[in-house]
């Protein structure tokens, strides 16, 4: 069996492990994926600067819809989860499995808090009158942030599986560290995408009195 174990980290032409390389490739592809979604959102945002109209015919500006304090909080949580993820990867490289478990559990909890915030936010916006059907803004907003949320959820699921797998004792050594590092790459990427989304979807609405796209029309609530 020694050859089997050895061959899974046989030297590669570039010195980069296959798993790490394929994750980088996936992330390159995912960049284009989110790039397309974000462009769609921005194109429509520019085209229809006035936000959306709810079922009662009230016009809403997006700035008034957003709860920037909550979103800033969840952004902070997600950033901190990246920090914990880095610690978990480092612990795994040093073979400190307990430290790894502690940190990865933190990542999982922070990820779940972020998802919880997003669920709350979606429900809140829905009650404010923003639906996927009633405006282009609703469609682009929910699909973009929802897709990101799905990425986070898949990441959380992946980390939960890794967490429990670590108890079998099979997660260790070079291969184990690599597996965790690859999961970490994914997690950091999802965070970075969120920072972009937070900037161009949320923060940008707060530039100027009626947001970056605002037209100066009175806001009816």
């Amino acid at each position, binding site marked *: *069996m020694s050859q089997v174990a050895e061959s899974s980290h046989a030297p590669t032409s570039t010195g980069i492990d296959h798993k790490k390389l394929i994750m980088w490739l996936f992330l390159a592809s995912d960049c*284009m994926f989110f790039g397309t979604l974000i462009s769609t959102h921005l194109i*429509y945002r520019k085209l229809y600067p006035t936000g959306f109209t709810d079922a009662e015919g009230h016009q809403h500006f997006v700035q008034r819809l957003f709860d920037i304090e909550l979103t800033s909080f969840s952004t902070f949580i997600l950033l901190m989860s990246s920090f914990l993820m880095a610690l978990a990867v480092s612990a795994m490289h040093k073979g400190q499995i307990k430290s790894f478990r502690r940190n990865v559990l933190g990542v999982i909890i922070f990820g779940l808090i972020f998802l919880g915030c997003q669920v709350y936010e979606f429900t809140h916006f829905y009650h404010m009158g923003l639906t*996927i059907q009633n405006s282009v803004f*609703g469609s682009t907003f929910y699909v973009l942030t929802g897709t990101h949320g799905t990425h986070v959820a898949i990441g959380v699921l992946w980390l939960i599986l890794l967490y429990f797998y670590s108890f079998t004792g099979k997660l260790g050594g070079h291969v184990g560290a690599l597996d965790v590092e690859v999961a970490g790459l994914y997690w950091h990427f999802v965070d970075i995408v969120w920072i972009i989304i937070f900037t161009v979807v949320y923060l940008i609405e707060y530039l100027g009195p009626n947001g970056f796209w605002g037209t100066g029309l009175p806001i009816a609530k």
Partner: protein
Amino acid sequence: MSHDTHHAPVASKLDLAPERSDLGLLRPDRSTGLMDWLTTVDHKKIGILYGAFAMFFFLLGGVEALAIRTQLARPDNDFVTARMYNQLFTMHGTTMIFLGVMPLSAAFFNFLVPLQIGARDVAFPRLNAFSLWTFVAGSFVLNASWLFEFGHLAGWFKDFAWYKSLVYTDFAPANGWFSYAPLSGTFGQADAALHAPRFTGVGTDFWIIGIQILGVASLAASFNFICTIVNMRAKGMTMMRLPVFTWMTLVTSFLIILAFPAITVALIQLMFDRQFGANFFNPSAGGQPILWQHLFWIFGHPEVYILVLPAMGIVSEILPTFSGKSLFGYPIIVFSGAVIGFLGFAVWSHHMFTTGLGAVPTAAFALLTMAIAVPTGVKIFNWLGTIWGGRIRFTPPMVLALGFIWMFMCGGFSGVMHSSAPADSQQQDSYFVIAHFHYVLLGGVLLGLMAGLYFWFPKIFGRMPKASVAYVASGMVILGFNLAFGPMHYLGLAGMPRRTHTYHAGNGWETWNFVATIGAFILGIGVFLAFANLVWTAFKGEKCASDPWDGRTLEWSLPSPVPEYNFARSPIISARDAYIEHKHGGHKIGYENDGGEAGVHMPSQSWMPMLASFGFLIIGMGMPMMAMSVPHAGWMVIAGVGILFTGIWLWALEGPGGYMLKTPTGSASPSPVSATTSTH
């Protein structure tokens, strides 16, 4: 030395294979025929399966094409109804692109890339199997729409409540292969069930989910190939020593991973429009249908190069072999391939010259489109330079490769005509465009792929296809093709729009439509003959030597058929065109001291990739059935997602596995020249 078969007597398991995975589940092994093919992780077998499926779908798409041509043979014809015609051309285009050319290219990628770079397999063998089976799932979903359509026409569903409640009864997609919104989307306001009214029925839903699944397959395969090419090259196989085919695989794979996300997002948005009443492309709610076109062609134009670059790679291998000369300007051919790939992302709007882009964008895209003709022209010049001063041996692959250059050149010329936007406003959506892209994709790509099939077939099966049949078939293909598509240049200039199921007499289109139909049938028979020759050869053909063409690259140094471990010992390369140098020049191939006594490490076979793909099949069948309000279809989708995740989970847990396989003793090099073993 007897190493002509790859079956058990020669190779034996040295180490005990882990018969059970970490989960305690039994791993499949190579004991039975069917199970072997279903669970294989061997890149060569996966390549053969890709090829077999692709050839089947080529013929299916061909039958659809012949039905189209039959309908158009005469004016005011009623061979098929308008709707059936629309479904035929939609499925013809989709089938040929996604189920014909792309998987046939993938067949070559799979079979050749590890052999050409001196590797024993791809980087992720099970992911490779997953790509294959996911492609099969997607192709099944797409074509299941035909089953529903025929069921509808035959009245099978008459008594079902869901059928009676249907507003639209087109089951096979009928939007054309680029499915422009809003015809493929929605209009008006969504109702309480979140459904906005649509222009087309569930055919479009089959199309959306089918393409989505095929996209997953292509993406997974491309990640794998890039990883393999970048990371698994034999010692001494530097990037600038890679065979051109492998280079083009690399460029194509990069195009796929960067272009497919755009269509994936567009399909998600269209799906949300149709299934959940979103407004991405719904004009009555402020959605912009033009966005679909941009997203589609940002994918769609690189897609053209995804289709054509592998064929260019194949031709770049065949021409030097049969000219007895190195490829002229190897670095420039490689570089121009990369430039084509890069510029391919910057010309998408030339598909949209008639959409009122405005003068400045139109001018910019016209100039960029002209610019992309330069690297393409460079390739043709270098192929010309390759045969110049050589000694051309005429063989079926060489004749087909020369045919490729000729047809591709013609297609390129009409492409240059399209790049001039004002001229294009007359040609867009006319038969001139049909002629253009069939010259590129059929005259070009299909001839290139056929050349590749005839070139590498002896390597794949160890049997030589009959040259006489091959010549007749190639002649019929080339003749029929030009007869079918040459006149379409004229038809387009005479004002015949594409995608029209009939036309009146008196427009001056009758004669050449009839000629085109005759040509199409000759072409169809030719392609069938060419494929039949191959299938016959695979089972009954004459056995041939392992290097029948005096090949140049590493794969020819291996026995035919190639043993499952590929290289008994890993090669060490010291020159481009390693094998011809080895045979005739001063740079011998060295061999590493691996694999000898210890045996070769082989990955275990697995059911899990197929299980995960099966999840995709269930999701893909469930979603359109949800759209037709078939009861419990929603549960089917959820079950599909469950199967998919279970498959991936078990796949992760079972681990790569693996066993040691003993290779024929001491036979480091199968080549006639005794190899020097290196101890690095």
